């Protein structure tokens, strides 16, 4: 009887037990209700602590370095910053839930169009004052040409860019030598190179549209833009069925029908695609910055190609200007702005440590020996950055609708349809246009 429960003891009455049970039951509720309190750091925390959320933009070493920079912040009024990594899985939900419960960040990086989505919902603090501070410090003049323009809305700067996720063509030099074919400079020569590469067991238009892989989506839009087309017209209206887009997709379908696109590419994840590059199956294709490091082949065989000239003389690629945004829920807007300016000023460390897989937005960083020492980087800055357009092309201003385009079902379905050759160009574009119309906010 030594193990007799205290609940069974006469001293523990039924009423007492019920009271205990009610208290235990209400504890989690009270805890949940208290989630947004200042003690939890809601809206950046008490006493001017700026809560900074960042994404895993590269390896964990990147996040460690970024954390070091953030935590090194010390504002004029004694404000500090905390750093938290947010995973890409369900990131929009993570941000939305946190913002709704007032436990979100004061400053963050995030999805390419996230700032515009939250601006629409009244959660973004405009960065005009921060821009003024950058002008005052002279750092404003260090921005590469045109990188700030897409973030200017009627009400002010929605966010400030900090890196450019550029899409450029890469090639494996040894495969071109083996196939004894010249590097493509335009679409006809891309077709010829693709045919020659096929004879040596390689693919001339490497891409992927499997789980979580957006490279096929980007390749389709890039080919449209490279032909003077795009998803939107200059007025920002949906314009998928224009002749340039039809022509571009007919060309991609020609690549597919000639076996220049890997028939299994529709299911390739980014890891599968990287493996194709590493294993010498990929001869030519659209990819990001720093491909040799990403795929694990730094022998010098993987190189950046020249931009292709479209049939009508157009030269263009697409770029995702990743940005830092500020939120209205902050312990101090001044501290948020101070932190943003400080963080932008420290970015060069990330490139100096060779942690980034994207282009910097500052000219001074492109001139760093750690960056400029890589001829691929130099070529991208020199030849590709000046012709890069955003997803909004032919329009120039970014908006919340682009979030539903990038990674949305309509584009994904369209890309998969094209690279499997399941439809003609016009039908696929028509379905794409209808799909987008149903999800884009008017």
């Amino acid at each position, binding site marked *: 009887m030594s193990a007799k429960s205290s609940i069974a003891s006469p001293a523990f009455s039924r009423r007492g037990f019920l009271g205990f049970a009610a208290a235990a039951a209400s504890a989690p*509720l009270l805890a949940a209700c208290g989630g947004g309190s200042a003690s939890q750091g809601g809206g950046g925390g008490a006493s001017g602590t700026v809560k900074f959320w960042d994404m895993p933009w590269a390896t964990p070493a990147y996040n460690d370095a970024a954390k070091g920079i953030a935590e090194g912040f010390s504002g004029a009024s004694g404000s500090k910053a905390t750093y938290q990594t947010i995973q890409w899985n369900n990131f929009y939900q993570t941000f939305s839930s946190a913002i709704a419960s007032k436990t979100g960040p004061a400053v963050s990086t995030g999805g390419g169009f996230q700032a515009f989505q939250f601006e629409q919902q009244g959660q973004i603090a405009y960065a005009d004052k921060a821009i003024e501070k950058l002008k005052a410090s002279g750092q404003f003049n260090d921005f590469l040409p045109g990188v700030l323009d897409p973030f200017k809305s009627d009400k002010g700067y929605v966010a400030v860019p900090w890196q450019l996720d550029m899409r450029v063509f890469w090639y494996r030099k040894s495969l071109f030598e083996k196939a004894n074919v010249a590097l493509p400079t335009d679409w006809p020569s891309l077709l010829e190179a693709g045919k020659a590469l096929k004879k040596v067991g390689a693919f001339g238009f490497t891409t992927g549209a*499997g789980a979580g892989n957006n490279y096929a989506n980007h390749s389709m839009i890039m080919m449209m833009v490279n032909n003077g087309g795009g998803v939107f017209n200059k007025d920002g209206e949906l314009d998928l069925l224009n002749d340039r887009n039809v022509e571009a997709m007919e060309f991609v379908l020609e690549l597919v029908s000639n076996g220049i696109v890997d*028939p299994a590419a*529709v*299911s390739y994840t980014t890891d599968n695609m990287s493996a*194709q590059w590493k294993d010498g199956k990929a001869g030519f294709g659209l990819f990001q910055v720093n491909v040799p490091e990403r795929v694990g082949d730094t022998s010098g065989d993987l190189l950046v190609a020249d931009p292709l000239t479209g049939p009508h003389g157009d030269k263009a690629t697409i770029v995702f200007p990743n940005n830092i945004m500020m939120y209205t829920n902050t312990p101090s807007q001044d501290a948020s702005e101070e932190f943003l300016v400080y963080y932008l000023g420290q970015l060069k460390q990330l490139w100096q440590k060779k942690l980034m897989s994207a282009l910097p937005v500052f000219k001074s960083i492109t001139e760093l020996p750690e960056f400029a020492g890589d001829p691929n980087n130099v070529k991208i800055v020199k030849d590709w950055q000046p012709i890069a357009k955003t997803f909004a092309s032919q329009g120039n201003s970014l908006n919340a609708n682009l979030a539903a385009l990038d990674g949305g079902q309509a584009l994904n379905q369209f890309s998969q*349809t094209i690279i*499997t050759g399941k439809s003609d160009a016009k039908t696929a574009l028509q379905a794409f246009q209808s799909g987008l119309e149903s*999800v884009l906010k008017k």
Partner: protein
Amino acid sequence: MALTTTQSGLSRARRGVAPGGPGTAPVKRRSKLSAQTSRTFFWLLLPSVVLLVLIHGYPLIHAAVQATHDGNLLQTGNFVGGENFSTVLTSPAFWKAAQFTLWFTIVGVFGSWLVGLGLALLLRTKIPAGGTFKVLLLLPWVVPIVVSSTAWNWLVATPDSLIPSLFRNLGLGTPLFLADPTLASITVMVFKVWVSFPFMMMMISAALASVDSTVYEAASMDGATRWQQFSQITLPLIARSTYISWILMTIFCVNDFPTIYLLTGGGPVSATTSLVVLAYRTVFQDFATGPGVAIAFLMTMTLVVISVILYRQIRKSSVE
């Protein structure tokens, strides 16, 4: 008369009336105790019930609000009534996903049940290292789905992956298991069966363990064949467990997001998009919260109907 006396005695015994004890007074005592007990139970249960209502009720009400509005995750938006439901129900993508979900569930439930049943029966026989086999057979269920889906991806994704290479070496061509819509659907379903059969095996093993072996001995003596023993004894005796496992596996399959999303992302060209994947993509990729939540509501209603039907089967099998 004797029979009546016996029945009366049994009846009294079931009521807890001692032989020779008073007739109706104890019944009154019993009902008084019941009322007290009921009140105690009520107060003891109340905190849990309140918690459950809050935990399940609040999200349900919030979801109902979202399904009838045109807002987003942060803002409720305008009331649109049943528009989101009609949008979803008139969408070909919804019906395509519903069709895939149906096949995925049928194959997932019955495929894993058949494999699980076969292995449970096999493990009942005396085989060497049976315990080790049991543990090894549990691995697909135990291993995190992220790990197993990545492993399956590397086995089948590219023409040079292990399985396509094997087919090629056997002169069977180079099947693109994840790139061909039909093969991708089959691959996802086989993967689901592979992941789920250990659960079924455990459920059936537990049910089989409770079957008295003397029943089979008696059946053998009566001349029943092994098939008759299986179909007339084993299956009816494990019917209750079977229906419960079917209910659970149906819910697992209909709500299964990671198995599909990690392996194919719902592709190629939506060939493996189930309703839950469609709901996720609608809310978090198209940012159309109302229609996405409407899909989830329709799924929940369907699952409730299926569960009720199967629960009735359980009660029926219990009575039998």
